[in-house]
């Protein structure tokens, strides 16, 4: 009897504890979205889900429903997939007018998948003929995806009227090996956010604060000035964190570009080991850490924690993305109010381009536009291309931009009424004129890791700046092949 009781207890415990490891279902049932419903509700932010548009075939039995799957691995911007619901409705109206027997039913999949996992899933799904038709992803994945023969070339799509006023240089981001492999989905920039209340505590007037973005843009307020101010804020115990830098694959390069570091020679398709500028950047970061303005572990620290620090007046400067404003609105980061409004952000937080390291230099930021790519195995390439045109409509760009604080990529999108009225997007959209792109070379993920590891080695004291540069050189030669040394 005792044994039976023990067995029962053990079984119950096993079941209870096993339940804790419940994994996300990959077969989430799709919810149907009628034409009158909004496929992009605010409640979708940070949640996964699958949605389908309703295809009306009543009265015409000969209609063929074409199923097209769209997937985004980023739940913080669900409109990247959900916008296809409206795009499909729009395309179906056109197909009806053309007397076509086909109608498109889109399955919009919003699923949180980490970058590494996304790459694996994409490769294995593609190799086993199970790839979705369209994927939303960062532009820098285009190199290896195209190189691996996973994508349908989209060359020619750039002639579509909807793309005629696309921001200059953005076709380069989706081009590789003389072909166009994707269409831009949005853009953004990585500014330096500053806390206005902290500046006031340091004696700044409202006018001085209002003038700061302009001064940073024209080089009157330099990187050294920002660093000194961060030190003053920490020394005078106004804040614990003077300067917070984020170290994502596209975030960390900003400080390197700002010091004039060259990373890639596009004409030769090779990475560059720019020793002197790498060393200058490492020295700057090392000094910032040793003087206490920058955290020693900043490379591995959580960006959400940094955003909380800034919105709660506990930090002065933070390098982050313009889209992070949406996180303050939706992720309950403020200690008193939880979520804050856009108006609150505008009143308490400012944004400026990263101040220049040298006065005679042009400011720089890095943009990581998201793109749509198409699987080469899609059965309906023409319909998919037409869907991409529909989803790039200014209205849908604006919906995504407003929901997730990203910037539309065409002039029409940026001048769309709701975008023009949005104070945050208006405030930060000028930053994109200073955008640089990391290369979309197939080896880009490896290079980003090397740069991050070298930085971490320097700021943690494991390597001197010279050792870190040497280490980068060795690792680049191993991982990236031939590199150009400068």
């Amino acid at each position, binding site marked *: 009897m005792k044994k039976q009781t023990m067995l029962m207890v053990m079984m119950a415990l096993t079941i209870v*504890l*096993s339940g804790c490891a419940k994994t996300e279902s990959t077969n989430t049932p799709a919810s149907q979205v009628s034409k009158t419903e909004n496929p992009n509700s605010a409640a979708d932010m940070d949640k996964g889900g699958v949605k389908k548009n309703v295809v009306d075939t009543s009265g015409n039995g000969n209609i063929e429903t074409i199923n097209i799957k769209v997937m985004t691995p980023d739940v913080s911007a669900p409109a990247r997939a959900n916008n296809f619901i409206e795009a499909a409705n729009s395309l179906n109206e056109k197909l009806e007018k053309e007397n076509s027997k086909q109608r498109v039913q889109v399955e919009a999949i919003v699923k949180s998948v980490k970058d*590494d996992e996304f*790459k*694996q899933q994409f490769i294995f799904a593609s190799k086993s003929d199970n790839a979705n038709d369209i994927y939303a992803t960062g532009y820098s994945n285009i190199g290896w995806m195209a190189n691996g023969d996973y994508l349908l070339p989209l060359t020619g799509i750039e002639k579509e009227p909807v793309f005629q006023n696309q921001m200059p240089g953005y076709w380069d981001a989706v081009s590789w090996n003389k072909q166009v492999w994707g269409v831009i989905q949005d853009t953004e920039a990585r500014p330096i956010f500053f806390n206005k209340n902290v500046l006031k505590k340091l004696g700044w007037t409202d006018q001085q604060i209002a003038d700061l973005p302009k001064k940073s843009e024209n080089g009157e307020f330099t990187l050294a000035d920002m660093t000194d101010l961060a030190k003053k804020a920490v020394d005078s115990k106004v804040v614990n964190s003077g300067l917070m830098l984020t170290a994502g694959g596209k975030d960390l390069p900003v400080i390197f570009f700002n010091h004039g570091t060259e990373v890639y020679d596009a004409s030769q398709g090779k990475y560059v080991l720019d020793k002197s500028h790498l060393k200058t950047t490492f020295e700057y970061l090392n000094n910032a850490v040793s003087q206490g303005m920058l955290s020693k*572990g900043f490379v591995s620290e959580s960006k959400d924690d940094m955003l909380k620090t800034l919105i709660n007046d506990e930090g002065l400067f933070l390098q982050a993305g313009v889209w992070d404003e949406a996180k303050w609105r939706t992720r309950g980061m403020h200690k008193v109010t939880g979520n804050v409004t856009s108006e609150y952000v505008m009143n308490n937080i400012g944004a400026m381009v990263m101040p220049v390291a040298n006065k005679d230099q042009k400011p720089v930021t890095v943009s990581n536009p998201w793109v749509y790519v198409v699987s080469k195995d899609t059965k309906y390439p023409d319909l998919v291309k037409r869907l991409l045109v529909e989803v790039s409509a200014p209205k849908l760009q604006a919906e995504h931009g407003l929901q997730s604080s990203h910037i539309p990529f065409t002039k029409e999108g940026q001048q769309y009424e709701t975008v023009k009225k949005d104070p945050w997007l208006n405030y930060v959209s000028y930053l994109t004129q200073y955008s640089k792109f990391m290369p979309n070379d197939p080896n880009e993920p490896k290079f980003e890791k090397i740069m991050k590891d070298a930085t971490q080695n320097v700021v943690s004291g494991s390597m001197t700046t010279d050792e870190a540069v040497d280490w980068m050189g060795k690792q680049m030669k191993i*991982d990236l092949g031939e590199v150009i040394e400068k």
Partner: protein
Amino acid sequence: MMNDELQEGSAALKRPLWSKIREQLAPGIMLLPFMLNQYVLFVITAVIVILISFTSMDSALQWNFNGLDNFKRALIDPAIGLIIWNTVLFVCVTMFIKVVWGLTIALSTTYYIRSQRVGRLFRMIWLLPRVSPGVVEALLWIWIFSSGSNGILNLIMHALYGWEPVNWLDRYPLMINIALSGIMGSSMSMIIFSSAIQSIEKSYFYVAKVDGASEWVILRKLMLPFLKWPLTFLLVWQGLSMFTSYESILLLTDGGPMNRSETWALYAFHTAFSTLNFGYGSAISLFILPVVVLAMFISYRVFGFKKMMKSAQSSPQDTERKG
């Protein structure tokens, strides 16, 4: 008697093949999935990994053979030195914790705690990590060592000593991983040691007590010699599995920061599945093979594993005959 047995044996040999198959059908069916795994799937996988290690296969998954390039590359990889050191530390210290901690719990709950009921209860508590998923364990440990002010250890240190929040996982990544694997993994050694201690003939203890042996002497001279084989088994079995396991590290620190908690198997995984360098990742994973073979050879010869296996293979009849 002997002749009868021989005749029965030769009669069995003469039986038709179908009869022999039918006799072994039930155990054969039961063993089939495992045999399929061991002799088909495992072999196919191993062959594929070996072949991939001689290619430059990357995200494009193309078979471009490049000879020994991947193996040469591993020898000059600047990360390798640290990774070897991490792996040796991880395997040795974790094994030490597993054995010492498992033995301590086993001795306490089977010998020093006289009540079998209480002993069983404690052992059951220590078994809980075995039935909980690794993800849950890792999440709990992340919560304990969280760098924020709400991390459990930071809360305690602040309450006791007024410490500012410390990023523990960043400061002591390997040590925390060793602690997690060692403490959570000690339940396996606890089970083996417990059953070994319980199987010692009770009369030995009575005789030792009558002879006036102290508890220390009983432990050292009576119990520990009986635990030689279980200890050898644990060292070989768990030691080898430690070389190839990386799940807990992946969940807790993902090998970082700066490879400071990266072990060999995890590096192979990261190289293949994070940087999509399948060729180089496969080559790295193959370096484990000679280490495992060497460890098996040493355990077979030096630790007397051979003798233990022989005694396990001997049938009761053999023992009887020898007797």
